[in-house]
């Protein structure tokens, strides 16, 4: 029971701290990351229920979800972390867009 209440406290604390985040771009990026993780779990879960034939479509979807999630996470880190304080933020967005274009092109080519 103690552990449960501790968990609840931790979750509430994290939620309160997160609500302090005011930058709409960061919130949007976080929602996108959650969306990617959800797609990943949905695809893998679906593959256990239904047959896995065309395997390359499943792999394209899985790796695209992982890839876009990683890219969004990298963008978020580049915008918020202290390590990258002096770096240009617009550059980070441009890199993210270029990398996303490449990744989506490759995944869509591999899918059928």
């Amino acid at each position, binding site marked *: 029971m103690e552990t449960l209440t501790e968990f609840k406290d931790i979750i509430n604390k994290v939620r309160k701290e997160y609500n302090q985040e005011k930058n709409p771009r960061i919130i949007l990026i976080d929602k996108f990351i959650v969306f990617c993780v959800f797609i990943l779990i949905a695809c893998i879960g679906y593959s256990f229920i239904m047959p896995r034939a065309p395997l390359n479509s499943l792999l394209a979807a899985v790796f695209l979800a992982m890839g876009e999630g990683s890219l969004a996470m990298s963008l978020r*880190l580049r915008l918020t972390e202290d390590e990258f304080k002096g770096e240009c933020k617009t550059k980070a967005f441009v890199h993210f867009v270029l990398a996303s274009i490449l990744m989506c092109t490759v995944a869509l080519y591999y899918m059928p």
Partner: protein
Amino acid sequence: MDDKRIHSEKSYGLLKSFGISMKPTIQLTILLLVWLLGFFIRIFSVIRYESIIHEFDPWFNYRVTKVLVEHGPYKFWNWYDHESWHPLGRPVGPTVFPGLMATAGLFHWCAHMIGFPVDIRNVCVFIAPVFSGFCAATTYLFAKECTHREGPGLFSAIFIAIVPSYISRSVAGSYDNEGVSIFALVLVFYLWIKAVNTGSILWAMACSLSYFYMVAAWGGYSFIINIIPIYVLGLIFIKKFNMKVYIAYSVFYAMGSLLAMQIQFVNLAVVKSSEHLASHGVFFIVQGYVLVQWLRQKVTKEQFEKYSKLILTYTTIAFALVFVYASLTGLTKWSGRSMTLLDPTYAKKYIPIIASVSEHQPATWSSFYMDVNALVIFMPIGLYFCYIRPTYGMLFCALYGVFSVYFACVMIRLMLVFAPACCVLAGIGASEVVTRLTKSLKQTFIEENDEQLEPIEEEEKEASEVKGNKKSKKGKKGKKYQQKKVATIVHKYPFISSVVLLCVIGYILCSYVFHSTWTAAEAYSSPSIIMASRGPTGEKVLIDDYREAYDWIRQNTDPADKIMSWWDYGYQITGMANRTVLADGNTWNNTHIATIGKAFASTEEEGYKIARHLDADYVLIIFGGLSYYSGDDVSKFIWMIRIAQGVYPEIVESSYFANGQYRVDAQATDTMKNSLMYRLAYHRYNEVRMSYQHPAGFDTVRNMAIDPTPIKLKYFTEVYTTNRWILRVYKVNKDPNREDPVKGSLI
């Protein structure tokens, strides 16, 4: 005294400023000269013989490139080759690494576009020397990125341009995957270190694109996809993991895996083979680690310790269970070649075809000295400096060096993967030693006055800061780091020992250049299909038997005829003689090769039945007994027997040995004397007498005279024997008056 001092300081200042202004020019000149050196050291065989494709495998690559150039990329990607592995054929698109052919095709197309009508053969012959120059330039960039100084870069570039193990696989004419893939390997590592140092998504994307090129070019890409995850895991263990590494690895992994699946040869191996398992595992570990680090900031210390232990044990158990399940149920499989790397005795016990290739044998001490020469001395020094003053790049070099040494010891072919690591580490070592000695010499000649002490103190402070902040500050300095240099406390070594040591190092490196030139000229430039020897009056005699026989076959046989020979020569026969073969160097069908081996190992009648069953019209064998050519089929016969024995246990290896000895004379066993290989090789050889010192029918390679009874062939007819008896072509007799009942029947 003061005037003299001011004068010498002034001239020193002028010299220093001149040196600094000329620095980029000097570096560029050195790199250009290194490129030219790398090119010219590889074209000995073109000058001595002619511009020709060497050995065995390059002939297949050349044939595929010709199809690409003549018929376009779609025909090449979808090509089903009916001329090899008769009657099975071979789908070329999904079974070949297309990077090399695509590169040559691109060069050919570009050259034709700008008005140089270069023949595709010349593009193929010279592509490897050109890429060695690219490789040297990339190694310079890689070493510079690792150490943030140009000195190691320049040393590494000159070392890799002429290191003998790289020359052996990239001479002009050796049109093989390694020629372009070593360049791709170093490029991937350079871009990886750049991504780790900057934490930029763009560099990680560039790294994954170059990894895609590497996957397209060579099967050795599995080395990269294992060493980068191991490096990231190692960084986690030594607590040097930061967000830049996280960004670099996540982007590289996701994009690299997706791109690797585009190559048909790799395709689903990305998720199904055990070689990629490390990359998947480390990706999830990294995500978990970052999550845990983030949570650590949110909870108190005791809570964190309690939960972390719990979660860690559960996740480790889960991972272990998944790994064991995957391995036991065969969900993921190690390929045979990878198993050989982990357990060197595996191939000899289970896969004789892998064990029979001479390149797959373990390396010896002498081969290390022959292949990397003087770098063996400097590499441990470089390794030492990687550990005492580590940057992210130098840690990676050290890891790469240690792993590649292990693999080079297991298989001599992988000395090639060890070569770039050796060159970079040796470059670091040599540069550090030479820099320290020259700095101490400079101290002797130019007495630094007191104002200079302050910068050194600042540099000492920098040193302690750098060690604490894990290089993040260095990244911020940006372009300034070139002037600050890595903080070295300038020691003063005794004058005489510095000079002597510098001379010794200079001598060793000069001897390295001489050794490399000698190996390139004498040891590694032989095209294998043309050989040279000295005549009795000292003139050079060219032995061109291979092309003689292949030309004869091309001109005197029907285009639909099939040739049965051992798999080594398959690529050459399809490339030069343009006839269908039964087996070639791809060795994908072990049973087919074992059947051919059984045909050679059985009696003439049995061999004839198998040859007719396999639909062969001609048989080609290599015989070196007259010309001291030791790499012939009689020497390989024992491996034919072993491979056949693996599939057909009725063939017993010991029955071919007389008292444990491999004999071909009158004392050979009956099984040996009646075998098809023996009869085809020594047919009519008893009539040949080399000289008065040797008896008739003397086999110079086995050093014994064969049984003098003449060999009469019933089912085969000799149609061609080359000038020095090296290649012998026999026609398989077919009954002209009736339909052959043996053809098409099962054995």
